[in-house]
């Protein structure tokens, strides 16, 4: 029977008891210096606790106090280890338990990514039509000032919105003519609120609630009224498909899944950001492709040239440094242009000029 010295704390006070520990066949017997039995712990109730490397620290499972026994004698520690199944000095049991945890955590991660990739879009697809248009308009009204503030980086002297100054009124009138033509053909459930804003980049965006922002950079890049109209038609496609609301729901869902649920770890939720970026780009590719198809059909309906969308896309994309942003938000330009042309080929329609030459000249100077 192995026996040796130990230190015992009875859990009621911090007093240090120098004890003799007997590894008896049935239980661990802890005796004080005067020979009194301080505690007797059955082997199957022993719990192994974390301690410095050369110390075996034990407690009794389900003990109402924090009584602790510490053994520094290696031979005695080994003997106790042999007798008690719960003592895990090599750490093998703990490692096995940890591997199980890692396995489950990984499985949970895979399942969450699958939910984000397939479950969330399916859910959002079904939820979006259920959101009343009045709520969508309110959503847009709440988002719009923030987006406007974000986009408005110009000097405070000039108005952000074009078409308000006296010299710009003619351009705004031409734009309104184009818009009423398109809006009439699109028959949207909510009115469009389209403005041209002073920004140099060639882009246009649609927000929930029918807000469409056309950047002045795009107006100057467009060579024909059809090119400008086709981009606006693409944005009207986003409005008709309620993509703004959908992407808002998706962003909220993703933030919840990856931000809140998985939380942050030191370094700022990096893996989370990475996964979110990839997942979001997979959503946006489908959305852009279907807005392109919508634009093709709308252009044909008003007698414009649907291929103009492909033409202006190629021109913009060629002029911009190849970068992550453009790629992520829009499917490969070549594939897009090919899809636009293919969709145009199967349509039969009559071409009409959208604006006359004077109107188009005015429109190009809508920002002065």
């Amino acid at each position, binding site marked *: 029977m192995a026996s040796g010295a130990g230190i015992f704390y009875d859990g009621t006070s*911090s007093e240090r008891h120098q004890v003799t520990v007997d590894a008896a066949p049935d239980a661990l017997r802890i005796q004080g210096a005067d020979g009194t039995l301080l505690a007797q712990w059955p082997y199957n109730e022993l719990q192994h606790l974390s301690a410095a490397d050369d110390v075996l620290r034990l407690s009794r499972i389900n003990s109402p106090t*924090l009584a602790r026994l510490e053994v520094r004698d290696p031979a005695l520690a080994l003997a106790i280890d042999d007798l008690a199944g719960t003592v895990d000095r090599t750490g093998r049991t703990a490692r096995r338990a940890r591997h199980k945890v*890692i396995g489950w955590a990984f499985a949970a991660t895979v399942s969450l990514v699958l939910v984000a990739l397939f479950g969330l879009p399916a859910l959002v697809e079904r939820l979006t039509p259920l959101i009343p248009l009045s709520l969508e308009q309110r959503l847009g009204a709440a988002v719009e000032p923030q987006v406007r503030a974000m986009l408005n980086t110009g000097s405070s002297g000039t108005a952000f919105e074009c078409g308000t100054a006296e010299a710009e009124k003619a351009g705004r009138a031409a734009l309104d003519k184009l818009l009423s033509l398109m809006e009439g053909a699109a028959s949207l459930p909510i009115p469009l609120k389209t403005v041209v804003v002073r920004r140099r980049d060639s882009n246009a965006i649609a927000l929930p609630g029918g807000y469409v922002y056309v950047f002045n950079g795009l107006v100057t890049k467009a060579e024909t009224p059809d090119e400008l109209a086709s981009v606006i038609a693409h944005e009207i496609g986003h409005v008709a498909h309620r993509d703004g609301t959908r992407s808002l729901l998706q962003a909220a869902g993703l933030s919840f899944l990856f931000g809140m649920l998985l939380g942050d770890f030191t370094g700022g939720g990096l893996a989370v950001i990475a996964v979110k970026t990839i997942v979001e780009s997979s959503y946006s590719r489908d959305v852009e492709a279907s807005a392109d198809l919508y634009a093709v059909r709308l252009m044909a309906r008003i007698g414009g040239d649907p291929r103009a969308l492909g033409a202006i896309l190629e021109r913009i994309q060629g002029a911009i440094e190849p970068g992550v942003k453009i790629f992520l938000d829009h499917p490969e330009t070549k594939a897009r242009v090919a899809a636009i042309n293919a969709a145009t080929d199967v349509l039969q329609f009559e071409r009409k000029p959208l604006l006359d030459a004077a109107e188009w000249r005015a429109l190009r100077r809508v920002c002065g």
Partner: protein
Amino acid sequence: MTFLEATAAPASVPAVPARPVHFTGNPHAYWRLLIRGAVLLAITLGIYRFWLATDIRRFLWAHTDVNGESLEYTGTAVELLLGFLIAIALLVPIYAVFFLLTLSMGPIGQFISALSLPALAFLGQYAIYRARRYRLTRTVFRGVRFHQTGSAFRYAVCAIFWWMMIALTVGLAYPFAQASLERFKLRNTYYGNLAGRFEGSGFRLFLRGLPMWLLVVGPFLFTIAVAIATVDWTAVAELASRGGNDLPARIEGASPGFYVVIVVAITASVVSVAMAAILFPAFQAMTLRWWASGVRFGNLATHSRLRTGQIYGAYLRFLLYGLLLLIAAAVLAGIGYAVLLILIGATARPEIAEIATIIGGLISYVFVMLGFSTIYQGTVKLALWRHGIESLEIEGLDVLDHVEAGGAASSAVGEGLADALNVGGF
């Protein structure tokens, strides 16, 4: 088998050393823990953090030896996970209410949503106090646990008040805020039935920190003084409100000193930022030394001999390892890119190349950022812990021999809240 005398036999206990607290952990083992943890964090998108935090605490506690006896951390990762889930269940309705209010109430809603930030800051302070309680009640020493009383709500009120004071005084109130909050915390901290208290003086920290404050904030004060003395602000404001094209030239005409002030302001900002970066380790060492010298438990008193150089050493190692990490990341990214180019040559599909480039970029980003956070943990955080405790001189250690047990384990909801709100500590 011989054994030593029982109970309070003084002969059996080694004579009280000047510095009775030691860190016995093996740095290699700690680094192994951290690196393995970083890899698992990346592949589980952070779910593993509860286990990593528990492992880190267990390691630090178990290797902190106070007068021949190490601390014990009894918390578990599952407790942290549950605490986090409960915190989420509490926070989601709050977020939802704020969101709906913003949407449905127009300008009033926007006012309410503007209030959500201070509300969350308040909740964050509340969580910090509750989380501290969790960590204390999971700390066992010689069979007796630490615990914490006091209302987390009151603590949060005090903390928010003091942070506002700090903002209003450009940092001058910081020493007094620290002293007041630490008094609150330690007054409510118990080891068994032994109450703690804090005797650090805010004024003393203020005096020691004042030179640093002057070096960092001084350049700004100088700029403001120059601006008031040289620029005719009413003229500039009038010109600016009129607008126009040749505004800069006309401002220069109306108030000749204007561009000198701009240059001074830019220089001052650069000097301030540089000073803040250079002095930060010294500031950290000063604050830690001040704090560690003020902790009392009954007759037990601590005094810190922490040297500022030790903290600078840790930061230098952090920078060195960080540089090595960046070089490694650049080399790996270069190899990866070369392999990619070869593969693309084989398939000739540019869109695959683009996707691969993005995924590669994200991987390197995560690699570098997680690497930096791991290196920070392994150098600076460990050094603060290790040198913080090893530099302690303790008087009246014998009070630790006769402490009665008290207090009960608390829930981990506070830790969960702190985690969800991103205000976590250790």
